[in-house]
């Protein structure tokens, strides 16, 4: 593991300390976990905003596409399919 130093605001440090106490983990572990959760959140938001594809999201989260679909289902993240696209799908099938 690498070591870096960074400046934290008081309220950020407070959050780390609070989680560290609540979960009985050292502050470094809590900080690393928060970083991971933050990363996942940002990637999920990028997916929701259409900036990341499903396979792209899977890669960023270090999961398979199948596991990523499960995660999105658990979170109830709505699929980016419009009603118009859905209707067009039937026409495409008939041609």
């Amino acid at each position, binding site marked *: 593991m690498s070591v870096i130093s960074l400046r934290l605001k008081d309220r950020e440090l407070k959050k780390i300390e609070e989680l560290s106490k609540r979960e009985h983990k050292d502050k470094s572990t809590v900080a690393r976990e928060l970083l991971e959760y933050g990363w996942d959140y940002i990637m999920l938001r990028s997916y929701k905003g259409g900036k990341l594809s*499903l396979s792209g999201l899977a890669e960023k989260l270090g999961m398979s596409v199948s596991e990523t679909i499960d995660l999105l289902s658990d979170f109830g*993240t709505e699929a980016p399919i419009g009603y118009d696209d859905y209707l067009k799908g039937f026409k495409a099938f008939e041609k």
Partner: protein
Amino acid sequence: MVIIFDSSTLILLAKIDILRDVTKEFKVIIPNKVKDECTKKDLFDSKIILSLLKEGLIEAKKVGATGTINKLCKDFSLHLGEAEALYLAMDEKCLLAVDDGPTMKTCRVLNVRFLTAIHFLIKLVKIGKMDKQMAMAKLEKLSFYGRYNRRIVEDALNRLEGGI
């Protein structure tokens, strides 16, 4: 009818256990990259997909055109599997089965016809390959994994209840 599949739709149909029925009615082709994406972990859906590949009900194809694929990835925020599937659908002038947002957007721009997992479920009932009761149960599962919006699920339900 030949249909090119992206990982998203292939996995969704495997998750609700109707992929085998679909492969019996349509010629299913996937690019090698999609095959890799769908089978890299030992999961329920990957086992189904591997088995169908082994039985020859799904065909995996090598896609060249690296330059075009990379351009699709760069221009439309796609991943390799999605770009390969899209390219194959354009190249073979086939329908693309996809449940991924950015890939669908790209289909609109490039005028590629596409459909999603929910269309296959309704089609199976329409051609008499699945009864309505079973289709309702599958729709419930598909709404969870596919995360379709309420309007789409209600419409699908109406189509199933109303005899399509």
